[in-house]
């Protein structure tokens, strides 16, 4: 599999790896939205966490990923793009933009779809915790 330089850069030095606490801790935190998507038997699990301030701005984002190089790069890129956006702006990130930015080949498009799903799941979790209607 030939990866693009950008995928390799993200893979070698991923941005914003980590979390804002254990699974039990982040469940309690209203300022943190958590999205976990994928399945181990499919070879990809992506966990995305966003930390949102009082104004609804995503001030920080962290990820962890079990998956191939493209999945790691897609989630690393997603955290980068999320930071500084409002929650609703976060929803504007599309998988096609990730494909374009990382030059993902057709067999790896599902990695970008997974990243978009993770963003939506994390934002939905944040909104649910804070009683915000979609």
């Amino acid at each position, binding site marked *: 599999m030939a990866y693009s330089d950008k995928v390799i850069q993200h893979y070698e030095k991923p941005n914003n790896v980590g*979390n804002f606490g254990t699974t039990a801790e982040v469940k309690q935190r209203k300022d943190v939205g958590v999205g976990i*998507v994928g*399945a181990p038997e499919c070879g990809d699990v992506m966990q995305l966490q966003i930390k949102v301030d009082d104004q609804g701005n995503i001030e920080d984002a962290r990820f962890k990923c*079990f998956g191939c190089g493209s*999945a790691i790069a897609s989630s690393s890129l997603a955290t980068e793009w999320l930071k500084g956006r409002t929650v609703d702006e976060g929803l504007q990130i599309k998988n096609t933009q990730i494909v374009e930015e990382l030059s993902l080949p057709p067999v790896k498009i599902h990695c970008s779809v997974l990243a978009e799903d993770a963003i939506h799941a994390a934002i939905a979790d944040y909104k649910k915790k804070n009683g915000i209607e979609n």
Partner: protein
Amino acid sequence: MTLKLPIYMDHAATTPCDPRVVEAMLPYFTEKFGNPGSRNHSFGWEAEDAVDNARRQVASLIGADRKEIIFTSGSTESNNLAIKGAANMYQKAGPGEGKPRGHIITEIIEHKAVLDPCKRLEKEGFDVTYLEPGPDGVITRAMVESAMRDDTILVTIMWANNEIGVISEIPEIGKLCHEKNVVFHTDATQWVGKAPTDVNADNIDLLSMSGHKIYGPKGVGALYVRRRRPRIRLVALQEGGGQERGFRSGTLNVTGVVGLGKACELCAAEMDSERDRLLALRKKIEDKVVSELDVVQVNGHPERRMPHLTNISFGFVEGESLMMATKEIAMSSGSACTSASLEPSYVLKGLGVGDDLAHSSLRISLGRWTTEEEVDYAADKIVEAVRKLRDLSPLYDMHKEGIDVSKIEWQAH
């Protein structure tokens, strides 16, 4: 000595040609180019002598008579000829007679070059039983015995598995087949040249082998076909000039055959010392990885395995990213992710290895020129890569928090 990168640790896929093999082959490209079928001049005789010599070298490695060696293009062809050829020769009824044509026994973790011919025969009216090994991957005599039927005509079980290196009970299964008058074929591609083989003591009727797995050239292999007690007959797949006693028409690949012969001679001479050396190196990798990491498993039977091959699963890391993190080492991944499908290895699944572990497996296979320095480097690199990926893995976090990852309801996508 400085280490040369990348390091080749995929000898179960193919091996480099031994320079002594190449040297033996060279004259047969240019000055000794004759067709062994040319009976009327010295060019033909010279080529025929070379083929005879190679036949003797191959036969000697497996304890056969040289007349029992049929040269082919490799193990895939040998397997096809053995399985389809024996089924069609020993069938209980012909196609279109509307009766069962006969029963064949094989196993689910065979190479595709055995499974696909069996599936073809199934479509053509034969019954096939696919035995399932236990978690250790070994097919025993008892398993074959319990699947035997009155109409069983052929048993085909591989000697050593190509993904996990596990060794089945071949001499015992052969004995059973001979007691029951059933033809016994073994795909010995990963076994021959690396461990002692005696087709008579081991009760084998048909044996497939390949040149490029034993430091010979690609595109050449052999099928051993027993001539006495019992004499095995086959329906040929390829017809024409009647070469190879009619089993396999077509002008012989003389250069390849000479290379295969030489490769067999070298394996016979160096087998014993090589086996001990490779086993020590393999154990070094396994010990290092198992002692430094948690949630790892060496797949297959602990002892009944080839000395040069190991297959290790690492929990909570994904196979393709593991290959990427260890890109200086050429190995195989247990996951077929790289081939654009999301299916984990059917061999590991066949052993009951969970999908999550099957996705994150490495097959490491050592060879004639693998050094201890390379093994140390590879083991360190693998440990480092697994640690790095586990730092990234949400599943490893959950595991450490005491969450059973297998109990979570994942949303498959």
